[in-house]
């Protein structure tokens, strides 16, 4: 709620300064004023019953809003957008504050930059596409029947939604609020006539409700320039000039003209204009196909080489993506991030004259974030993404960011009463990412045994929290039953004595990775003494050899003869410099994960039994050396 209210406050400020086309007095109002204006309009229109018709959503100053959506800190600023190739860039759009400051459409870049108070940005088609996709998501969040009228306009069919969402006013206010969450300042008009709803949305700020039969009256005060269609810019400039020369400036004046005479002078365009002005035109709605692609792009004017500023930009894109997913009641199961990077060598780029080839030469960097459960928690996703990028950052500075989310249904889980607690999947994913950052990507996960007889061969798979929360009530029921049975079994285990006879504890094994080189002394064909890692001991018992072999068809085939040995260590230290066997490599003394003499005898003074040790040693027939595989512990 706090976030929503904050966004609302910001939008109010933004609306006050930026929203509204030149000449539209209502566009300069705050959100509250717009709502008040819409309320007054409804009162002026009488208390006629409203039919659930069409809702038109219009984004004023769409190009500017698309930029502001990507850079929310610009919401209070005067903004001018440039388009074209330098040095021929010209101002193609500006918000009201910039126009008041003196910016004019068509100004050159240098002229626009002379205005210190105006933020000059490049027009971004990618951001406009994303803003339009967000606008479509806004429509689909309310109604499945949406018309993609224009980049800045959509129309929803509200038929049958009253029982689900409430009255028209509630739906309109909900649309305004959701648009704010998506970073857009929208105007909403509800009317039983589709074209009237579109024209009124272009003319009136805030929420406008037009009762059936009141269309002409509602449109009457609007300028003729708001009458546009989805076919393109309509009316044409020459028709507007003609109407202006006649003194026809408003829709009411146009509607008052006789149709026949108007068609004689302006043709079919004049007739259509006349229908629009009267609110009498009718056409079928062109439905847009549902789209579940969630993509956001951001082109950076300056390359970003460091991760910290990059994470701010990623956070913005994630916020936008998550807001869009939330509007559609979906969540992200996979986040894909692609960076376009700065070329490593400038010479390589200069040598490429062809622009297409240069474009193809732009290096890219891609990262996938696969989530254990679908999520739309942007903060958590950002943390995960940052950890991934820290582990493997892009080689050069980032020029462009592309982010896409694979949508999935969000997880709805209910914990069972008798189920054991387990880590929250989202927090667990974050913890695993942090651990992977600490110890390395392949060193965290669930061990999985490999289908081979090779000793100590396994894989570390991605750890997924067991879905203890059942997905369906029946599964939940059975899971609870299982949990209760497990608890009963656990209670039964308390009677240790009854189980003691049946229960045998397995002897565990500790592996030395890699195996420790050893030297072995044989006596009468039996193992007599063993020395490894600086310690020496007498073999008091042994079992073996056990030959294992495999992968003989490969270069790294193996063939081992294994012994289990009981070693009684000699307390006098074995000289490091004088190994028992000349075959013993010098590098054996200090190996990662190896025991040292200090470890073996650190507590021997108090524990005489520690002088014994059970080890598994093997003779590698391929290499012709002895090794210690591990110890029984």
């Amino acid at each position, binding site marked *: 709620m706090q976030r929503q209210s904050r966004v609302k406050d910001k939008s109010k400020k933004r609306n006050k300064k930026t929203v509204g086309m030149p000449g539209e007095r209502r566009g300069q109002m705050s959100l509250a004023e717009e709502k008040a204006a819409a309320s007054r309009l409804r009162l002026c229109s009488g208390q006629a019953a409203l039919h659930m018709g069409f809702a038109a959503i219009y984004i004023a100053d769409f190009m500017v809003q698309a930029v502001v959506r990507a850079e929310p800190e610009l919401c209070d600023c005067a903004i001018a957008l440039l388009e074209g190739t330098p040095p021929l860039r010209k101002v193609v759009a500006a918000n009201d504050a910039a126009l008041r400051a003196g910016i004019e459409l068509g100004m050159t870049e240098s002229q626009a930059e002379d205005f210190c108070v105006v933020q000059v940005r490049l027009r971004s088609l990618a951001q406009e596409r994303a803003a339009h996709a967000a606008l479509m998501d806004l429509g689909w969040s309310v109604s499945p029947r949406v018309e993609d009228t224009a980049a800045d306009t959509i129309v929803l069919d509200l038929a049958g939604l009253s029982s689900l969402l409430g009255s028209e006013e509630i739906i309109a206010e909900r649309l305004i609020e959701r648009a704010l969450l998506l970073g857009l300042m929208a105007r909403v008009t509800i009317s039983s006539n589709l074209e009237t709803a579109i024209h009124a949305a272009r003319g009136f700020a805030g929420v406008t409700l037009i009762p059936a039969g009141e269309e002409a009256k509602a449109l009457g005060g609007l300028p003729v320039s708001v009458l546009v269609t989805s076919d393109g810019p309509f009316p044409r400039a020459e028709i507007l000039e003609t109407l202006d020369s006649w003194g026809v400036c408003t829709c009411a004046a146009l509607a008052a003209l006789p149709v026949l005479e108007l068609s004689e002078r302006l043709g079919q365009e004049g007739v259509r204009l006349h229908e629009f002005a009267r609110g009498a035109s009718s056409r079928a709605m062109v439905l847009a196909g549902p789209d579940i692609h969630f993509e956001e792009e951001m082109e950076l004017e300056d390359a970003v080489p460091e991760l910290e500023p990059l994470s701010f930009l990623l956070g913005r894109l994630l916020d936008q993506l998550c807001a869009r997913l939330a509007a559609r009641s979906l969540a992200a199961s996979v986040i894909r991030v692609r960076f376009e990077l700065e070329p490593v060598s400038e010479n390589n780029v200069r040598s490429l004259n062809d622009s297409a080839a240069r474009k193809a030469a732009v290096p890219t960097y891609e990262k996938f974030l696969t989530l254990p459960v679908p999520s739309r928690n942007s903060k958590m996703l950002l943390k995960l993404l940052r950890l991934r990028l820290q582990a493997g950052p892009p080689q050069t500075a980032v020029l462009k960011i592309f982010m896409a989310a694979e949508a999935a249904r969000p997880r709805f889980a209910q914990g069972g009463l008798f189920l054991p*607690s*387990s*880590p*929250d999947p989202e927090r667990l994913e*974050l*913890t695993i990412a942090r*651990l992977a950052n*600490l*110890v390395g990507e392949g*060193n*965290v996960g*669930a*061990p999985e*045994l490999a289908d081979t*007889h090779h*000793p*100590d061969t396994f894989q*570390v798979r991605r750890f997924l*929290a067991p879905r*203890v929360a059942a997905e369906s009530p029946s599964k939940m029921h059975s899971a609870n039953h299982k949990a209760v049975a*497990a608890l009963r079994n656990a209670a039964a*285990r308390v009677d*240790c004595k009854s189980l003691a006879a049946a*229960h*045998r*504890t*397995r*002897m*565990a*094994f*500790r*592996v*030395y990775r890699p195996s420790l080189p050893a030297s072995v002394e044989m006596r009468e064909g*039996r193992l007599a003494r063993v020395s490894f890692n600086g310690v020496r001991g007498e073999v*008091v*018992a042994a*079992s*073996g050899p*056990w*030959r*294992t*072999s*495999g992968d003989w068809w490969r270069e790294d085939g193996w063939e081992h003869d294994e012994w289990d040995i*009981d070693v009684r260590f000699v307390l006098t230290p074995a000289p490091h410099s004088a190994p028992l066997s000349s075959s013993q490599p010098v590098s054996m003394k200090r190996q990662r*994960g190896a*025991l040292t003499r*200090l*470890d*073996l005898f*650190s*507590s021997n003074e108090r*524990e005489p*039994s*520690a002088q*014994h040790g*059970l080890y598994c040693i093997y003779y590698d027939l391929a290499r012709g050396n002895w090794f210690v595989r*591990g*110890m*029984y*512990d």
Partner: protein
Amino acid sequence: MVPSIAFGHGMPCPTEPFLAVESPMSGNLAALRLQVETALAGRVAAPFSYRDRKLVEMVSAGIPEIDALTGGLPRGGLTEICGPPCSGRTSLLVSALASRTAQAEVCALVDGRDAFDPHGAAAAGVELKQLLWVRCRNIEQALRSTDLLLQGGGFGMIAVDLSDIPAATVRHVPLNAWFRFRRVVEDTPTILMLIEQEPNAKTYASLVLRVGFERAQWMGTASENRVGDFCCANSSACLLGGAGVRAEVVRSSVQPIGGGAVGVDGSVGIFETEAMGGWILPRRCGGRRQKQFQI
């Protein structure tokens, strides 16, 4: 009952009835008490009241003898298993992991020197899919990983295996690290188990268990090598059958829910481990086992 502040055992406590007697000393004590309470107001609720020791839930360690000796492993507490190499520490750890994963709990193993054997653990009954294995290279990574796992929460058991790290290195870990671990794990259902060569967490550990190697069991048919019940000679006909492990309760400060049996300091128990079916047989019998021979 544990006094929470300076008035230790043997010292008169101001809350006792004798304070009612009017004397200059009691007046001074009352004034002193008031002064201390005022100074600690807002930070300590009742500085002079006794704090009940928390009742903890005990769960099976997977070894009946150990359960009988200690009452089980305390949830929300730090359990230290210490002993020299080949003393059975890892067997106890693996049994505990098998017991917890069998109850559908999610466990984590912080492997200080990457010595965990997944094959043996699977044979011992550990559900590997429910085990988060963190393979560390040094003690710094192990401690930081433990911290992250504890902060993440939700694990039934977090085992920290520092047994291959030199005892001197572990000894240098500041006490506040163990204190922090203990405080984080308190009031959670997580069992924090520490495997090491020597006990280091001092009084922050709820249960300290020392294990030691008793004897190895060798099975075989070579009569010339048989001594007593065990075939302990150096023979190809012998097979390592297991080992006896001696466990001693060094310290136990747990008070289980329901007043079950708890380990008494100094009490000793012995359990047997079997090697059959663990590291040896599944792999050797499943592999290309060949005729035994002597080289």
